[in-house]
C-alpha cells in the first residue's frame, strides 16, 4: 500500500550518506510532486549490500521544478527534473 498519492507534495529526507546511495545529494531537502507510483522493489540499501530478498517498499517518481533544486538555476522557470525514490526517503512536504 503506497503511503503517498499521485499529486501529493513530498520532501526528500536529508539523511547522511556513506559509500553508496541512490538518493542524489542534489535532491536532499527538496520538495516536489509525486507524478508516478512505481512497482515495489527491494530497497537499494539492502540490494547493494547483499540482501537480495531484503525489505521491499513502494517507489515514487517525483517531479521538481529546477528552480527549486538549484539556487542559481539559469534555465527556464518552467523546467523540471524527475527522479525516483523509495518510500523511506520521502516525507510529507514541509512547504
Amino acid at each position, binding site marked *: 500500500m503506497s503511503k503517498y498519492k499521485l499529486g501529493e507534495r513530498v520532501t526528500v529526507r536529508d539523511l547522511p550518506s556513506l559509500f553508496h*546511495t*541512490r*538518493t*542524489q*545529494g*542534489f535532491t536532499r531537502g527538496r520538495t516536489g510532486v509525486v507524478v*508516478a507510483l*512505481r*512497482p515495489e*522493489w527491494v530497497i*537499494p540499501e539492502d540490494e547493494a549490500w547483499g540482501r537480495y530478498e531484503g525489505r521491499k517498499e513502494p*517507489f515514487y*517518481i517525483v*517531479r521538481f521544478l*529546477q528552480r527549486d*533544486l*538549484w539556487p542559481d*538555476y*539559469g*534555465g*527556464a522557470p*518552467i*523546467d*523540471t*527534473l*524527475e*527522479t*525516483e*525514490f*523509495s518510500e523511506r526517503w520521502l516525507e510529507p512536504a514541509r512547504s
Partner: protein
Amino acid sequence: MSETHTHDHPHHHEPIEEKQEALEFTILETAIRELSIEKKLFSAEDHRRFMEWYDDIGPTKGARLVARAWVDSDFKRRLLADGVEACKELGIDWMRPTGFGTPSDYTFFIVCENTPKLHNVIVCTLCSCYPRPVLGTSPAWYERPNYRRRVVRWPRQVLAEFGTIIPPDVEIRVHDSNQKTRYMVLPMRPEGTEGWTEERLASIVTRDTMIGVALPSVDWTTTSSPAEGKN
C-alpha cells in the same frame, strides 16, 4: 554535494584514449570468466547467449518504435501506457536473454513523449542506466561524469553543446533514471515527413534523438544523402 574544484576557464579535456591499451583488463576478464565457468558459477553457453544479445541490441529498435508511434496513434497510446508490452509488438523482448530481463536493464520501461511544450532528456547521474534493449549500448559521453554532472543542472547549455536549442517557453524535463525504471524519448515527428514510410521515418530517428540531446532532422538520413532526403 561537494565541489572539489572551480572552473574559471573552460576546460579542454582531450579524449583519453591511450595509444596502446593495457592488456591488464583483457587478461583479468579472461581469468575471471574461465574461473567462473570452471567453478560452474555460470556456463559458457550463458556467456555466449549474453554476447549474442549484446550484439543484437542497437538503436534501430528504438527508432522503429518511434516510427511506428508516428504513423499509428493507437500504437503510440499503447507504447506510452506500457513500454515493455508495446515493444513485444515489434519483436523487442525485454525479458531476453535470461527470461526475466537483464540484471542491469530491468523490465520497467517508460517512453517520454515530446510535445510542442515539453522536451524530455534522459540521464543517469549515479551511473549510466540506459534502456539497452531498445537503444543498445550507451555512448561514451553518457557514461562519463561530465554529462552526468551537468545535464541535470545546466540542461540548456549541455543541449546547446549538441547543437540543440530549446526555446525558453518549452519546458525541458530531465529524467534522472536512478532506480529500476528505464526511459526513452519519443521525439516529435518533424515537418516535411508527410507520406514517408515507417522505414524512412525510422532512418531519421538517431540514438541521440531518443536520449533527448538532439532533434530528428529531415535533412539527413542514414541511408540517403541530404539531397535525396528532401521531399
